[in-house]
């Protein structure tokens, strides 16, 4: 095989390909139809020849996945700004002290030269001041928290480990624990405002399951207990035993025993119902081993229906272009397939015409209720009413419904119809119209059989998770490649959309102007003012250039949803419409984007990132989510089911969507609170520590004399104060995980960035300044012109240094004690340990032995013994602590009393709730009240009918008949592993 392929350079267009294959001098055109893109699977094909055209990063898929950017948290960015501010502050302090030194040397130092000549080379006061500037830079540099960055990383790492270790985020079924793949983004998890979620595989399991049905006016599928109460289906509910049927699919589960009874009792409508399900479809069976049937269905819905029929004893076993083999209650029957009246988007139904072994001609039809109800025979009116009731019930539970009906055909009529059908199907002109006319003609006066209800299985706990996240004020956007109908249906079934909403806007314009109008109309309805020129944001637009605008949050006058299709989205993402889209979409509680390409997913995320000051999270499981996972501030991959692509590019991964609430509300929230507390305390302790030097400068001739022993300065950040704050930021919990989940409102302060921002920083700074004033002036006042109780002088430098540093250390230890709301053993150990280590080290360093061995290093010999034995030293220490700490206690208490933040109120509620016995487990069934008829269970593409009737795909020799076409917009693109 030698040939040559010329094709276009790798690009990200999923629906286009041009190239030529030259083989033995002949040229063949290659287009998108002949391509298998990375990520799809071929069905009904054992093998095929292929040629790899693009590989690795050149594949269209990878081209679509966007660039990997280095992610940093907003606190990181804030920290960098703050460090710069602190540098400026340091420079200012040094400048003040340098000027002070200049003045002092001029006024006093100059005359004091009798005892202390100026240093060599210093010949003027101003030069001395200049030198002192740099000396103070060295002394006061501790105000710049150098160890901050290291500590922050340690804390993040620790909090990431908690995510890895969490058993409540471990999925036992496929042995997948949660994983923090990036260890630097934890606190951002506590600030998420927008979640962008994929649908298939993330919200749904991509498993359709035959859940309920209505046969001849009787509804099956619900389980009742002895007293007639409907009970919840859970793992413990007894499944229906299908052992009478050797061909049953063991994975199929059904709980209502009465249906089996009906089948066993040879109830005619029931048998006809299942016979219909086993005949009327375009599924391909595959039986590689005897009895091991595998169905290849174009849409999972169809597969589910056929599987249901199979289990109840109507096993669809084989098909040829002319026949369908069904094992009916153990008895093999071969039906003659006379015609398939295939599905399309207008008809919304499909029918088959078969001849039973007994010779009866029957038309079986299934389709959307709205359509089928028009075609029923008038005699079904009563049954229609009952079935409608059931349909409403099914729809209310978010199930996808289909109505099934049949019709017996007269032999003569059919022969006539068949002839006309043949003519029409070979007609050259207007074939489609003629055919559909014929279909209309025969599909009428149908006899209603019943209805099926199929559940598009959601992942476990999805509606609850979404409800919880919505309570936490997180907005959820679903970005899916699915059709609008399916997407909206899922929207309803996971409680994203519901009937309580004022309106659900659907944007499906196909020109730029249409989209603009639709968006503006939606916004007009939600907030009429926002259209007016007088609106603040509009004014703001006028003023500033578009690229730097941050759109503030706008409040709509109700709860709205927005559904936008990929086609309209393409227009909406263009230049001028961007802002419209963001404003309108962000006002809605829920946004669903359907039929979007991977790149569009990323663009939507990018859009929100650009115009909203909000933290975004993208969650997905497939390769098509990679781009948005990479784009969002935080990317979460669902691991376990599909390939690893999404997980590999994600920051966090776990197996189930429902773990998201634990990740955000528990881990994220704790990480955020811990980080903020850590930063607050860290800045505080460094300010309190360093500024004492600043005040001392005014009393020591601005000579860059430190207040503390240099050993203390070295060990303060490293030994004495590092562990307690680390302990707090690894263990602290304001409320435990259960309460965090019960009160999602507690998450809101994180979104609003309330716990650490510039204002909080300034407050920390002021508190630090206040503490440093106390820490300097109380020891100063206590030592001034006084003596010890034995008459010896007390105000020597070393005693003062010891006193000041002891005060400082106890004050910051008490402060960390106040900040710690969760004292584990480790915290106790760290806090008390640090204090005792301080005293132990101090006494050791100030001991005789150390002095005699290292004379130059430990000049403070004896200070600890001599000074700490004095009552007035301890009284001064106690007073400093009281003055530093008591105002903080009072202020915190009063703030919570007078100006309680929403989270204070929640905490209060929790406190009260804790006194009462614990509430019953928060297990509640989300009863949907929707009356909306949900989507009919058909694939939204043209069916396989023609293919089956042609028999092409049944020829084992035709290896190229792939039935899996690749389309970027189709759901199928997603199903396959990579």
């Amino acid at each position, binding site marked *: 095989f030698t040939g040559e392929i010329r094709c276009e350079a790798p690009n990200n267009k999923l629906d286009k390909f041009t190239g030529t294959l030259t083989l033995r001098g002949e040229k063949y055109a290659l287009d998108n139809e002949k391509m298998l893109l990375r990520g799809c699977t071929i069905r009904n094909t054992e093998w095929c020849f292929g040629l790899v055209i693009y590989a690795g990063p050149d594949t269209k898929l990878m081209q679509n996945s966007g660039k990997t950017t280095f992610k940093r948290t907003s606190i990181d960015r804030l920290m960098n700004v703050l460090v710069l501010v602190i540098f400026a502050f340091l420079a200012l302090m040094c400048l003040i002290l340098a000027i002070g030194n200049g003045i002092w040397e001029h006024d006093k130092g100059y005359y004091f030269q009798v*005892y202390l000549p100026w240093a060599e080379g210093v010949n003027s006061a101003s030069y001395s001041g200049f030198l002192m500037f740099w000396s103070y830079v060295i002394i006061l540099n501790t105000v710049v928290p150098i160890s901050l960055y290291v500590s922050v990383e340690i804390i993040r790492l620790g909090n990431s480990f*908690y995510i890895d270790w*969490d*058993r409540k985020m471990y999925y036992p079924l496929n042995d997948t624990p949660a994983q923090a793949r990036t260890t630097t983004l934890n606190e951002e998890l506590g600030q998420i405002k927008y979640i962008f979620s994929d649908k298939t595989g993330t919200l749904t399991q991509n498993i359709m399951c035959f859940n309920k049905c209505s046969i001849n006016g009787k509804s099956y599928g619900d389980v009742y207990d002895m007293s007639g109460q409907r009970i919840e289906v859970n793992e413990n509910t007894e499944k229906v035993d299908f052992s009478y049927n050797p061909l049953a699919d063991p994975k199929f589960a059904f709980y209502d025993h009465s249906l089996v009874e009906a089948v066993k009792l040879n109830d005619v409508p029931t048998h006809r119902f299942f016979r219909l399900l086993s005949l009327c479809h375009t599924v391909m069976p595959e039986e590689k081993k005897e009895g091991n049937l595998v169905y290849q269905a174009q849409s999972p819905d169809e597969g589910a229906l056929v599987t249901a029929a199979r289990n109840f004893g109507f096993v669809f076993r084989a098909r040829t272009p002319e026949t369908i083999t069904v094992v009916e209650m153990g008895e093999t029957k071969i039906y003659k397939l006379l015609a398939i009246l295939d599905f399309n988007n207008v008809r919304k139904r499909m029918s088959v015409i078969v001849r039973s072994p007994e010779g009866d001609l029957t038309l079986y039809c299934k389709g959307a209720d709205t359509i089928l109800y028009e075609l029923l025979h008038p005699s079904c009116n009563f049954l229609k009413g009952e079935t409608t009731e059931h349909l409403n019930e099914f729809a209310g539970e978010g199930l996808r419904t289909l109505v099934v009906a049949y019709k017996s055909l007269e032999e003569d009529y059919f022969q006539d119809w068949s002839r006309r059908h043949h003519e029409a199907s070979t007609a050259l002109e207007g074939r489609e119209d003629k055919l559909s006319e014929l279909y209309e003609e025969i599909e009428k006066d149908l006899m209603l059989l019943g209805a099926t209800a199929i559940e598009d299985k959601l992942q476990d706990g999805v509606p609850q998770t979404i409800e919880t996240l919505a309570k936490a004020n997180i907005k959820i956007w679903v970005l899916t490649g699915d059709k609008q109908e399916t997407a909206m249906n899922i929207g309803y079934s996971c409680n994203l959309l519901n009937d309580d909403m004022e309106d659900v806007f659907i944007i499906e314009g196909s020109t730029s102007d249409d989209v603009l109008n639709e968006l503006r109309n939606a916004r007009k309805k939600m907030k009429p003012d926002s259209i007016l020129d007088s609106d603040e944001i509009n004014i703001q637009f006028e003023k500033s250039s578009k690229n730097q605008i941050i759109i503030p949050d706008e409040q709509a006058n109700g709860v709205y949803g927005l559904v936008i299709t990929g086609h309209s989205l393409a227009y909406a993402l263009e230049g001028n419409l961007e802002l419209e889209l963001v404003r309108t979409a962000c006002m809605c509680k829920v946004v669903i984007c359907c039929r979007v390409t991977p790149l569009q997913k990323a663009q939507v995320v990018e859009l929100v990132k650009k115009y909203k000051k909000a933290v975004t999270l993208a969650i997905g499981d497939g390769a098509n989510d990679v781009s948005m996972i990479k784009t969002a501030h935080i990317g979460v991959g669902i691991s376990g089911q599909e390939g690893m692509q999404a997980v590999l590019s994600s920051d966090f991964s776990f197996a189930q969507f429902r773990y998201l609430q634990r990740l955000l509300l528990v881990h994220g929230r704790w990480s955020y609170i811990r980080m903020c507390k850590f930063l607050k305390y860290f800045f505080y302790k460094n300010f309190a520590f360093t500024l004492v030097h600043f005040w001392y400068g005014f009393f020591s001739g601005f000579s860059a*004399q430190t207040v503390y022993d240099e050993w203390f300065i070295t060990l303060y950040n490293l030994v004495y104060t590092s562990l307690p704050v680390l302990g707090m930021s690894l263990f602290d919990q304001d409320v435990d995980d259960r309460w965090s989940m019960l009160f999602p409102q507690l998450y809101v302060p994180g979104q609003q960035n309330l716990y650490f921002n510039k204002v909080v920083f300034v407050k920390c700074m002021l508190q630090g300044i206040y503490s440093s004033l106390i820490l300097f002036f*109380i020891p100063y006042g206590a030592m001034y*012109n006084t003596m010890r109780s034995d008459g010896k*002088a007390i105000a020597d430098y070393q005693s003062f240094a010891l006193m000041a540093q002891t005060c400082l250390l106890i004050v910051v230890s008490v402060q960390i004690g106040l900040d710690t709301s969760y004292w584990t053993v480790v915290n106790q150990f760290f806090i008390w340990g640090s204090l005792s280590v301080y005293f132990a080290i101090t006494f050791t360093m100030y001991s005789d032995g150390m002095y005699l061995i290292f004379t130059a290093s430990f000049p403070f010999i004896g200070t600890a013994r001599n000074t700490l034995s004095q009552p007035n030293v301890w009284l001064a220490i106690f007073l400093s602590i*009281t003055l530093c700490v008591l105002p903080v206690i009072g202020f915190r*208490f009063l703030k919570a009393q007078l100006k309680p933040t929403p989270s204070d109120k929640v905490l209060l509620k929790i406190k009260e709730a804790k006194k009462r016995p614990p509430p019953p487990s928060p297990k509640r069934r989300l009863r949907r009240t929707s009356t909306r008829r949900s989507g009919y269970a058909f694939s939204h593409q043209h069916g396989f009918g023609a293919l089956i009737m042609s028999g092409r795909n049944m020829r084992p020799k035709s290896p190229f008949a792939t039935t899996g076409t690749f389309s970027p917009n189709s759901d199928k693109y997603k199903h396959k592993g990579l």
Partner: protein
Amino acid sequence: MKTKTSLLPKEGEAQPSRCPDNSAFKQQRLPAWKPQLTIASVLSCFFLTGAFCLTVGVCLVLAANSVREIQIDYSDKCSDCSKFRENSSNWNKECHCSVNFTLQEDILGDVFMYYGLQNFYQNHRRYMMSRSNAQLLGRNVKIQRSSCAPFSTYRNGTPMAPCGAIANSMFNDTIDLFYSRNSSVIQVPLLKTGNSWWTDKNVKFRNPESYNLSSAFAGTARPPYWHKPAYLLDEEDERNNGFVNDDFIIWMRVSAFATFRNLYRRLRRVRHFAEGLPAGNYTFRISYNFPVSRFKGRKHVILSTVVWSGGSNPFLGIAYLVSGTAATLAGFVITGIHLKLRKKKTYFQKQ
């Protein structure tokens, strides 16, 4: 909790390999004490602290008031000497001056004599650094390279002993106290040792070893401002001579502030002075050697008794009283606010 754990494999079953450990630490379920700011804890905090501070404050103020202290600024009273000292050519001439004062009442108990200096920046960084602990420990008396600059060696290379700016600027006034009793003048007996920390006297300061002290200091010279070498600081008492001289040790323990007092002498309670200082007329006879006028320094001589809380400085007592009052008042304010809020809350609840 129970419903959730039921999802997980039950205990006893073989655990899948990747399932995280069910330890309290890893699941963040470590038992913990969760203190909260309740009204009870806050109020008790404020009131207890308030009460404690007030009590201590009263005690401190009473104690400080019971201290008898006489402080005399002799920089003005000895202005002649002060001017005399400004002329550096007079450095080796003596200048004496007397300061009289009268005690109306007896000062009972131990009486301590201090010299106080004002505006003397012992806490200047370069001043504080300018010493050699190794030399003062007697290990290397002829130390050449040290932090003593600019007072480490003379131009000819002779090292100073003791070296450094601190030692060089040692306070060298001598103050004697005389008591006029029935027209006879008695010198008040004063103790010049036992005034420094034990650790300083016995560990931090040691004389270099040799057969006698002067030979131990051989090869070194006295600091430029000193009148006599170190080994002649106290010729009468071997244990108070050289580096272990109490006056020297006390001076070397530099003060934290520019205004300070150092213990100079203690009253030796014998004969007339067994009870303390009796009332009457006293005279300080000062040998004025230490010039301070150039840098506007001031010199004081202080006589004081001590109590458990130290000297007569009322700062700590007043600070305690103020803090105690503030804490108590704040406690009342918090109580008030709390009661008002609770009333409002119950009011709203009734509605």
